[in-house]
């Protein structure tokens, strides 16, 4: 069975000096997945980079939750396009070598 490292959301929020309600709102919007274990809410370690990015967008750049949703959708699209571009460039390089 795979072991997952979970971080208590309360500790994480305390560290970043934010309210845990921020994560409730993110979860309600399906932007982040939290894990509940015996009445305690945790965030999986692998989600920390995304969570920290959302904190920066919201608290540093003052982007509201709707905005974060849009930003993440667009970032995903950019990422997909970049991957497609890399694949296309590689194919083109192979053709050039012939």
């Amino acid at each position, binding site marked *: 069975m795979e072991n997952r490292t979970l971080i208590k959301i309360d500790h994480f929020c305390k560290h970043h000096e934010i309210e845990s309600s921020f994560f409730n709102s993110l979860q309600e919007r399906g932007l982040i997945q939290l894990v509940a274990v015996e009445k305690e809410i945790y965030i999986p370690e692998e989600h920390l980079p995304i969570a920290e990015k959302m904190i920066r967008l919201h*608290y540093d750049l003052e982007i509201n939750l709707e905005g974060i949703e849009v930003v993440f959708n667009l970032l995903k699209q950019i990422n997909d396009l970049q991957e497609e571009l890399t694949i296309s460039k590689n194919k083109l390089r192979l053709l050039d070598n012939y």
Partner: protein
Amino acid sequence: MDFIDYYRTLEIAKTASVGDIKNAYRKLARKYHPDVNPNNKEAENKFKKINEANEVLSDPEKRKKYDAYGKDWKHSDAFEAAKKQQGQTQQTSGGQYQGNEFSGDFSDFFESMFGGQSGNRSRQTKFRGQDLNTELHLTLKDVYKTQQQTLSVNGKNIRLTIPAGIRNGQTIKITGHGAPGANGGPHGDLYITFSIENSIQFKREDNNLYTTVDLDLYTALLGGDLLIETFDGKVKLKVAPETQSGAKVKLKGKGFSMYKKDAEFGDLFITYQVKLPTNLSEKEKTLFKELSEIRNNGKSNVNQN
């Protein structure tokens, strides 16, 4: 080492106010922040420059020094000496975005003019205010119709619209009415949990109401009209002949207000409970016995003592 025009970096005029600087910085930071420009070195460099410009221009002391000596930055030490003589104290102000790993990377020009950033910089991190929780006690009658209430939270009066149909235990969020933020951070939110007491005869489940109505034997057997109490007044009901005790009827739209659905209501479910007559007179007993015999083909199955 070249002079850096911080005003040009932030795309503002030299006469820009503190608010203008803040707005310009925020606008450009949103555009060039590394989080929204992944793998974009150009945006990252631009963001560093914007941060540096903001670090100087958002701080009145640094801005003053920059404005006076910017182009002649090599003589800025003289400015420092003069300032010390005047006994001024340096105050730092913020506006720097927290938590980005790029903000510490300043140009040689900045380092020469303002020295090592670690000693001079004072970040004023913005923190959102705390969320507040409160409980509001109402009766079922109070929440049948949408109503306005004024709440006093931390000495501040908040005018609140309570939508009809709100449920017991339901929590609503009033954005921005929590505790004030620190260093210009936004207010927290206010969470109000409703405690709704039911002091009436109706039992509420979701939007439906349930009640039990007594029915006398004769109306139950022969049918008739019955005046019953609903939440918003009396209603005349036709009782079908031979209605059994425990029979249920539904009055559509006579239930409780639906939450956030204007003028829509649940249903009212009525359970009939047939009440048998007591203290029978001799004549009544005789007639009931007769009825019993009719029902049982002439044989009485009533044992009388």
